[in-house]
């Protein structure tokens, strides 16, 4: 038989590389290679750990073989997390040695660039570009703002966006969309691929990735690879002593320790960084023999410590790592056998994502154990487990109309050699985020970028970008430098670095936390008990603290996502199926329990006594009935409402109802919200009649009233912080001069006073509506509740459902009173309390 040299060539390609490692490509990988070589764009949708990276990377290389040989930058790989950059680069480098022996065309190498890349390395990279660059959306924007961006990206063939579902519904996603549009202009013929896991709205994800015009011709490739998953919930023993509210869930610690002990390697996911700190501390205290085999991983822990934890996981040296969403993404850790989810997963996609972090050893099963932190979370765990098994998952909607991102982008493009207005307008309108951009908003954004908006018309000397001969340029090199610094800090609040007094960094905490501590105060951070020695500027110097008593845990902003609509419905459904009338006799109870066991819902069975108490003291919520509980305590009058629409919608509803109440009589209300309902509290009794509540929750004038109530709360002002930073109103990061530091809220006040039409203010209001309150969901909830029956119940004491709301910290206030009235009321209250305790 004759050997054909042509076959030798094929063996040197992707299939050969797979064969050399004893692997076989999946059909979806072959599809991607073929489509990419052909020059199509698209989205690859596959579970984690199935070889998405290799699919699009080898596809990029295959495409390179079809194009004229070049020496410059050919592939840009965008990843949402800085922490993933190094791992990704390593994975990309792996096949290059094999493929370089004949199959590849031209020289291929991989380099990384992030905000942490040193100045020397950056200079080196600019001198000689790699074939492929792994970077983040922020750093890509910075590269696009450099004067040589045109030359840098002219030869670009392929751009990959990793974990696109993570970026999709965020401002960083909008920033990425704009950057992709820019790249397509600089390198016509550019091919765009996105990688995503668990996502319901693939069409929108593709449109945002390639732009709506190119979306119809883009390919969506799905990998149909079943990954066996087992999900269960830890049931507290004994159930009676399990708390009704709380965020830590420590009661289940012994059971968790037991299970960690039985497995080789476990991951413990928490929903917040404070939870992670507490759990790490508790595990370390419970098992001193695990010293050195436990690690903590969250976004505020110093990078070096995090990398050490990841490395330990990869090599199987660790027994357990406690982590937040910081470990949701990224390269898989083979040795992980099981994953714990402390607290409700809040969404089905998140549950699946986290479950997928385990069981990557060949033939292994992914295993996730839900650890409820309080009784009602058992129901959320059951609902999530059931929905995940049924294959349901939530959509993630891309953002639109973010003028702050647009204003930033205009300055970015102006930095890199300028733009013609009509050209850039067309380019921007080609993105999904700005497809519906009207003339007025475009002109406003341009005017804001150039002159700071109409309010600054009186200051002709102020300009960030200037028009010369029909092109817009950056006004000065100093402004370009400042702009590049601010690009990198889209996310992230004012933070303080935590350092050992004797040297070494531990990570960062929010400035607001440190500012509440005094030297000598003790707190828990990066898994260590610390004592604050002193705070100077942006550094907190700490020493190790002896003893564990009285440790504070920092509360970091954000991080708590609301219960998804899908899951809220599932929860209400479960509650309904544990009906109140069955609670009467012992026989009925037995019957109910037996049914739950049959349906495989041990969580509901465990929580049944609590639901019975709820039914006895008040009633159980159900689809079609809005429960309103009223209670008077020494601190004032409370009302608890349970619309089951998710925490954010409840925050909005609470503000709305408070505003409608306070409009009648000037008063001050405090509000708290959970995923199940919300609480209003004030000094005067709250309405008793069903009719009053129906009016307070009426759908009429919903938008007007919500916008009006935003003025009575701090929410728009708080939200403005992020917008101000993106638009360049507030300097992010630590490198700015002290002369130009001002809080976003101060600028918010100045703008509101002197530039009321500033679009950034209306954007802040709109974003509070859309993101903070999930306006679309809120409107649906109001419409739904309007058709519901309303039941007002005066409860003798806090009911099991009301208790978690009462225990929740007060999240916001709404007032229609003047400042003096408020102080007078507060003083009167203080006097009354003093009088009472004197008696």
């Amino acid at each position: 038989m004759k050997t054909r040299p042509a076959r030798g060539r094929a063996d040197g390609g992707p299939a050969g590389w797979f064969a050399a490692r004893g692997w076989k490509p999946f059909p979806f990988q072959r599809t991607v290679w073929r489509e990419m070589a052909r020059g199509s764009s698209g989205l690859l949708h596959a579970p984690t750990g199935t070889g998405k990276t290799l699919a699009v990377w080898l596809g990029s290389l295959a495409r390179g073989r079809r194009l004229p040989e070049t020496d410059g930058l050919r592939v840009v790989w965008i990843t949402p997390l800085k922490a993933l950059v190094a791992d990704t680069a390593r994975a990309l480098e792996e096949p290059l040695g094999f493929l370089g022996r004949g199959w590849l065309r031209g020289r291929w190498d991989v380099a990384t660039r992030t905000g942490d890349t040193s100045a020397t390395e950056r200079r080196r990279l600019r001198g000689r570009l790699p074939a492929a660059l792994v970077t983040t959306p922020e750093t890509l924007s910075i590269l696009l703002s450099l004067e040589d961006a045109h030359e840098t990206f002219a030869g670009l063939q392929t751009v990959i966006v990793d974990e696109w579902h993570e970026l999709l519904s965020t401002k960083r996603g909008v920033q990425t969309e704009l950057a992709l549009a820019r790249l397509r202009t600089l390198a016509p013929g550019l091919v765009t691929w996105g990688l995503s896991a668990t996502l319901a709205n693939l069409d929108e994800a593709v449109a945002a990735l390639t732009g709506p015009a190119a979306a119809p011709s883009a390919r969506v490739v799905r990998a149909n690879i079943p990954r066996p998953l087992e999900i269960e919930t830890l049931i507290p023993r004994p159930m009676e002593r399990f708390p009704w509210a709380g965020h830590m869930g420590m009661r289940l610690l012994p059971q968790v320790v037991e299970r960690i002990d039985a497995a080789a390697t476990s991951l413990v996911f928490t929903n917040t960084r404070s939870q992670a700190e507490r759990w790490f501390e508790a595990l370390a205290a419970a098992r001193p023999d695990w010293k050195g085999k436990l690690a903590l991983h969250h976004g505020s822990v110093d990078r070096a410590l995090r990398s050490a934890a990841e490395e330990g996981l990869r090599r199987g040296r660790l027994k357990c790592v406690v982590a937040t969403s910081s470990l949701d993404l990224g390269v898989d850790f083979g040795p992980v056998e099981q994953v714990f989810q402390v607290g409700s997963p809040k969404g089905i996609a998140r549950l699946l994502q986290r479950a997928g972090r385990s069981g990557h050893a060949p033939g292994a099963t992914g295993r996730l154990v839900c650890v409820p932190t309080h009784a009602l979370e058992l129901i959320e765990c059951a609902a999530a487990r059931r929905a995940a098994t049924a294959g349901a998952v939530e959509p993630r909607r891309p953002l639109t109309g973010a003028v702050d991102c647009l204003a930033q982008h205009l300055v970015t493009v102006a930095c890199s050699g300028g733009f013609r207005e009509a050209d850039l307008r067309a380019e921007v309108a080609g993105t999904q985020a700005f497809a519906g951009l009207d003339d007025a908003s475009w002109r406003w954004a341009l005017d804001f970028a150039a002159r700071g908006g109409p309010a600054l018309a009186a200051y002709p000397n102020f300009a960030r970008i200037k028009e010369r001969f029909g092109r817009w340029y950056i006004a000065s090199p100093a402004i370009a430098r400042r702009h590049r610094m601010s690009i990198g800090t889209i996310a992230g609040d004012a933070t303080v670095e935590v350092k050992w007094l004797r040297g070494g960094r531990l990570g960062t905490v929010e400035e607001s936390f440190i500012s509440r501590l005094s030297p000598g105060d003790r707190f828990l951070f990066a898994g260590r008990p610390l004592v604050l020695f002193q705070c100077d500027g942006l550094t907190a110097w700490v020493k190790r603290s002896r003893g564990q008593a009285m440790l504070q845990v920092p509360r970091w902003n954000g991080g708590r996502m609301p219960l998804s609509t899908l899951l809220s419905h599932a929860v209400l459904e479960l509650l309904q199926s544990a009906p109140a009338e069955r609670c009467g006799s012992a026989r009925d109870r037995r019957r109910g329990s037996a049914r739950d066991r049959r349906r495989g819902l041990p969580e509901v069975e465990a929580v049944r006594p609590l639901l019975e108490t709820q039914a006895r003291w008040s009633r159980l919520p159900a689809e079609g009935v809005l429960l309103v509980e009223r209670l008077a305590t020494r601190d004032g009058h409370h009302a608890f409402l349970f619309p089951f629409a998710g925490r954010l919608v409840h925050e909005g509803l609470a503000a709305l109802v408070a505003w409608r109440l306070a409009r009648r009589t000037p008063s001050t209300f405090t509000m708290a919200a959970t995923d199940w309902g919300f609480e209003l509290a004030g000094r005067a009794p709250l309405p008793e009649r069903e009719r009053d509540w129906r009016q307070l929750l009426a759908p009429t004038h919903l938008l007007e009233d919500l916008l009006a109530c935003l003025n009575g709360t701090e929410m728009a002002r708080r939200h403005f912080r992020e917008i101000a930073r993106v638009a360049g109103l507030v300097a992010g990061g630590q490198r700015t001069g002290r002369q130009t530091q001002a809080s976003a809220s101060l600028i918010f006040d100045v703008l509101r006073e002197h530039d009321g039409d500033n679009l950034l203010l209306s954007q802040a209001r709109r974003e509070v509506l859309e993101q903070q309150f999930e306006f679309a969901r809120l409107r649906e909830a109001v419409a739904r509740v309007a058709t519901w029956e309303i039941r007002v119940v005066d409860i003798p004491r806090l009911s099991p459902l009301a208790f978690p709301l009462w225990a929740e910290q007060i999240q916001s206030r709404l007032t229609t009173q003047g400042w003096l009235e408020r102080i007078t009321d507060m003083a009167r209250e203080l006097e009354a309390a003093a009088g009472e305790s004197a008696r």
Partner: protein
Amino acid sequence: MTAVRVDSDAAADVVLLPGRAALLPASRTLLVSDIHLGKAATFRQAGIPVPEGSAQRDLARLERLVVEHEVDRLLVLGDLFHARSGCTRAVFEEFATTRARLTGTRVVLVLGNHDHGVGRLPAALGIDDCVTALDEPPFHFVHEPATGVAAGDRRLFTVAGHLHPTASIASKSGDRLTDRCFVMEPGALVLPAFGSFTGGHRVAYREGMRLWIARDDGVVEVTRLAAAGSRR
């Protein structure tokens, strides 16, 4: 809204006025601190689009206070101007114009850390005297309150600015309010920042301290509320 008369334990009265200013009836002096004129302009110089407006309004407020109380002297306890880069001609002119209308009032500036950064102030501004500190028994006027203690003269009552103090008060039923304030401790009074475009630093309540919330339209003592808050 009425003013608050404070016995400064130095045998002389200080009257806390609505509008974040204080009055010394004995010497017919109006005290203000930390106006930070030109701060918005400093921001614009750095490419940050912040409109003016607050400065003109602050100057108008200042003028009204001087006229209303018919004072012989306006004593600024430091940080009249924000930074050199913000001291544009327009900013200086605005101040000079307001100043020129205050005939019959001497304007004295106790230099603050920001004023030092601005450098030599032009004579055209109409500032009659610039000093680093001023001793007029029973008062010691200075920008940064710490220097009064360092001076060691415990017999004088320090009146200062610099700290931009704010007070936070809360009630058990959940209301909470943070605003600029006057702070008095034995031997010293610190004024709130007069300028609208200025930030604040929260004062931690200590035993023996008195606090007044200071607003454009009023002054109210909140010592008991602040003390109750610090115990919780």
